[in-house]
């Protein structure tokens, strides 16, 4: 292929195919370069100025998020955020979306999503300790969706199991809006045994740029641009933009990077993962952050395909590659070190002081542009916002459920795919490798201990996009607080957040309003409980034929458990234990799973969330757990009290006998800020005295799998075994 000339690119507006607008191209050629960019240069700008790399549409909104606390060591802007957890240790975490690649090539799309997020963690010098994921698909009714689900789950497992990191938590939800645009968000948590971390910078004149890891191929070219575009019937095959993963190489790379940073910190000045927009993004960001320039020689780049041109090499998103900045006197040590791990490591360039980004290929200077123009000069957009029409029309609507038979509704709810057990999927993930997992998937949070200490880390991924759709601000708050309740119910103190912001096209004013308002909701909730947002990513353009997904912010939260004796799970432990509901229940049916079951669609507004009360309940539960008053604790979420009670019985095959002032319908209400707890009978008065809020004594755990329920309307005795079977087998049946 002959490369188009700079003039052809301008005259034929070829830059448009790569995602640059006329005005952006104009800015580059007239203001920044004062000449026409050539083929390679235009490619570099198009990926670096994509939403995926530049956040040009979302930056203004993202600034609303709190990112400071007494624990924050590093926040947004690095490969991952870092929080101090005391004793000279820190926890490092980030989540990232891989939605578009997973839609066209589900196995590799999901696998490389996991691989990419792991690299973000070890590039900070941290040892990855756990993985989580949040997945959203269309309903499990046709073969195509089931194939997509199977392949995504297999890709996540295939990568995580092979590299040897436990997958300890996550969520899977099914709604119509994700049928053609599934969401695949992956999170990785790491541990840093030294609070002095490596920045992703390339500084110091004549210091060397070292390429480490897998060879560069043509996979993933323009992946970042592809991720910043929407799907339609007409262009649903963009498979060449999807990367192919090799977890075996990543395992070697991970072990080598963690070891070199730990044992030889003086050798490495900076390190960064080659993720989205591969070589260009990593090197340009490193140089720009340090105020340096760079010269790269592409002839040195390890290649697995022949005759690749500069454009292809710079834009390739081949996986399992890292960039290091190394002092010349240590370069031989560094190359030798990686050779021992049987990894390619070569010097591909050096740091300069002129702030220019220069690339040579086959002895030709193919790029010569200001490095900051790639990272800093991206225009920032102030998008138009309009409140969605549905919110105005439906603001006074209240869904009123109709319960003919409590038992029937109860069992029906347990079988709903959003509520039923997801074990069918998560049992294909190795959740125990590394022998540190204290709480496996299935409880409120995954919990991993820190070997050699009394500490453990609790982690969870939460997003209920149904609420965000009905009211983005309140829905954003709920996403954070539900995650926090999951951490608190596990015995942890919420300390920080990472997020994936999955939305529709930001050029659509309604979609942008949803983004803005839900971020405000997230920000206000995070401020309330002092959980700064220290990392994350934005995935816009999640649309199919111009119909957007529900606004779907995913909150990844990390909590610190200071003493592993405080680790708490949701399952009832013993018969005769007392069951309490903490928090008042109201008629919160808009956005509920019951509304979807009975009405078939979402409608109405959400009640405002009382953040003071929410925080009070979290604080009280934490105190009760640390005073060893609580034997089991479960956050109430989809399906309300009925589902929480049921889920608590299944693990130990117990039952319950309760009497409540709630109506039968309210058993399924999804009022926020509530917990279900059990306590030993002897702690009754201590517990009741501590709980300075609304609590209701419900009844007792019983030794047989029976649900004996008296509501304000009726008394029902149900078989717990039947309920368990419904809940456990629903997904497996649907996947057949």
């Amino acid at each position: 292929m002959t490369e188009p000339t700079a003039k052809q690119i301008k005259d034929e507006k070829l830059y448009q195919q790569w995602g640059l607008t006329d005005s952006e191209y104009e800015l580059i050629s007239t203001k920044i370069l004062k000449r026409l960019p050539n083929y390679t240069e235009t490619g570099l700008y198009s990926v670096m100025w994509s939403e995926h790399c530049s956040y040009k549409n979302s930056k203004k909104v993202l600034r609303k998020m709190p990112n400071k606390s007494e624990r924050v060591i590093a926040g947004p802007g690095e490969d991952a955020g870092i929080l101090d957890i005391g004793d000279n240790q820190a926890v490092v975490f980030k989540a990232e979306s891989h939605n578009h690649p997973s839609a066209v090539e589900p196995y590799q799309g999901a696998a490389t999503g996991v691989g990419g997020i792991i690299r973000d963690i070890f590039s900070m010098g941290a040892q990855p300790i756990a993985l989580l994921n949040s997945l959203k698909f269309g309903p499990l009714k046709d073969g195509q969706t089931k194939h997509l689900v199977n392949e995504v789950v297999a890709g996540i497992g295939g990568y995580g199991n092979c590299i040897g990191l436990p997958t300890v938590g996550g969520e899977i939800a099914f709604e119509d809006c994700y049928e053609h645009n599934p969401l695949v968000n992956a999170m990785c948590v790491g541990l840093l045994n030294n609070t002095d971390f490596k920045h992703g910078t390339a500084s110091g004149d004549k210091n060397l740029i070292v390429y480490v890891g897998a060879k560069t191929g043509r996979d993933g070219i323009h992946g970042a641009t592809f991720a910043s575009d929407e799907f339609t019937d007409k262009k649903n095959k963009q498979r060449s933009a999807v990367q192919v993963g090799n977890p075996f190489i990543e395992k070697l790379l991970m072990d080598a990077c963690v070891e070199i940073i730990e044992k030889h910190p003086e050798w490495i000045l900076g390190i960064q993962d080659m993720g989205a927009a591969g070589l260009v993004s990593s090197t340009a960001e490193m140089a720009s952050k340090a105020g340096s320039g760079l010269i790269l020689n592409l002839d040195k780049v390890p290649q697995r395909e022949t005759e690749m041109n500069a454009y292809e090499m710079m834009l390739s998103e081949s996986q399992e590659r890292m960039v290091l900045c190394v002092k010349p006197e240590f370069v031989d040590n560094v190359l030798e070190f990686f050779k021992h791990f049987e990894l390619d490591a070569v010097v591909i360039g050096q740091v300069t002081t002129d702030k220019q980004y220069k690339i040579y290929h086959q002895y030709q200077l193919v790029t010569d542009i200001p490095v900051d123009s790639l990272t800093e000069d991206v225009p920032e957009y102030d998008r138009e916002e309009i409140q969605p029409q549905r919110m105005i029309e439906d603001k006074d609507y209240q869904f009123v459920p109709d319960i003919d038979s409590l038992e029937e509704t109860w069992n029906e709810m347990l079988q709903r795919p959003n509520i039923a057990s997801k074990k069918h999927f998560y049992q294909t993930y190795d959740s125990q490798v590394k022998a540190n997992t204290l709480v496996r998937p299935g409880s409120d949070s995954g919990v991993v201990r820190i070997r050699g200490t009394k500490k453990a880390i609790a982690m969870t991924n939460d997003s209920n996009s149904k609420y965000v759709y009905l009211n983005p601000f309140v829905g954003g708050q709920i996403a954070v607080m539900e995650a926090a309740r999951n951490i608190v119910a596990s015995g942890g103190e919420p300390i920080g957040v990472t997020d994936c912001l999955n939305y529709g096209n930001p050029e659509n004013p309604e979609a942008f309003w949803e983004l803005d308002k839900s971020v405000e909701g997230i920000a206000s909730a995070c401020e309330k409980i002092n959980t700064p947002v220290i990392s994350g990513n934005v995935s816009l353009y999640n649309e199919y034929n111009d119909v957007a997904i529900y606004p779907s912010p995913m909150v990844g939260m990390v909590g610190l458990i200071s003493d592993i004796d405080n680790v708490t799970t949701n399952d009832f432990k013993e018969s005769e234990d007392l069951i309490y509901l903490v928090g008042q229940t109201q008629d919160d049916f808009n956005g509920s799973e019951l509304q979807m079951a009975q009405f078939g669609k979402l409608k109405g507004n959400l009640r405002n969330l009382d953040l003071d009360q929410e925080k009070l309940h979290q604080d009280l539960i934490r105190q009760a757990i640390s005073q060893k008053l609580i034997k089991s604790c479960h956050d109430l979420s989809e399906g309300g009290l009925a589902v929480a009670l049921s889920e608590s019985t299944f693990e130990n095959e117990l039952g319950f006998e309760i009497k409540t002032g709630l109506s039968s319908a309210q058993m399924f209400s999804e009022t926020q800020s509530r917990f279900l707890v059990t306590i030993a009978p002897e702690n009754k008065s201590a517990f009741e005295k501590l709980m300075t809020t609304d609590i209701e004594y419900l009844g007792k755990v019983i030794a047989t799998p029976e649900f004996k329920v008296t509501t304000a309307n009726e008394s029902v005795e149900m078989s717990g075994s039947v309920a368990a079977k419904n809940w456990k087998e629903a997904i497996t049946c649907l996947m057949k």
Partner: protein
Amino acid sequence: MKFAVINFPGSNCDMDLYYAVRDGIEQQVELVDYRAQSLEGFDGVLIPGGFSYGDYLRSGAIAVHAPIVKEIIRFANEGKIVLGICNGFQILTELGLLPGALIQNGQSRFICETVALRVVNNETAFTNGYSKNEIINIPIAHGEGRYYCDDKTLSELEANNQIVFKYLENVNGSVEHIAGVTNKQKNVLGMMPHPERAIEKILGSDDGLKLFQSIINYQVKVNN
């Protein structure tokens, strides 16, 4: 006793085994690189789980060509203790040090779960601390753990009491529920379940601890 944990590229349960020996039974343990030439000075060899060389061709198929392997063979032939867990079991069958093969699970998926095993033979170097037919809970995590052998091999295994562990429920479709077998001399054990993940109650089970203690018991007896 001094144990070697062999570290192949792609092994990922090496540290779990290392800690099981160091903290669980408080014995000496070292990681040994796959390029090492000698196992001199070690009393037992442990081959960990993971995905050696990515397991892209067939589980364990590439690992058998690593330099350390001829020392493992020597070790086994001299009657010393060799334990292969998960990928380690796959490597031992690839090497022919153990009979049979591990193929894809019956349900064609990876499974991670804590399962109940029956101790079928409690008179080996690895199981003397258990009682006969004791039921123990040990995690599994594998995609290719379905034990297969032909009828002739099976009758030999049975005749020689080489079957050590059986799954209570046949989780992966193994022949005769087999979860772990020894060689004829009973100094080499391969098993798919992970006893090194069942060393502490807080991790869900400490039923794996007795396996490592059994090795010590055995060695003490041999030395006396």
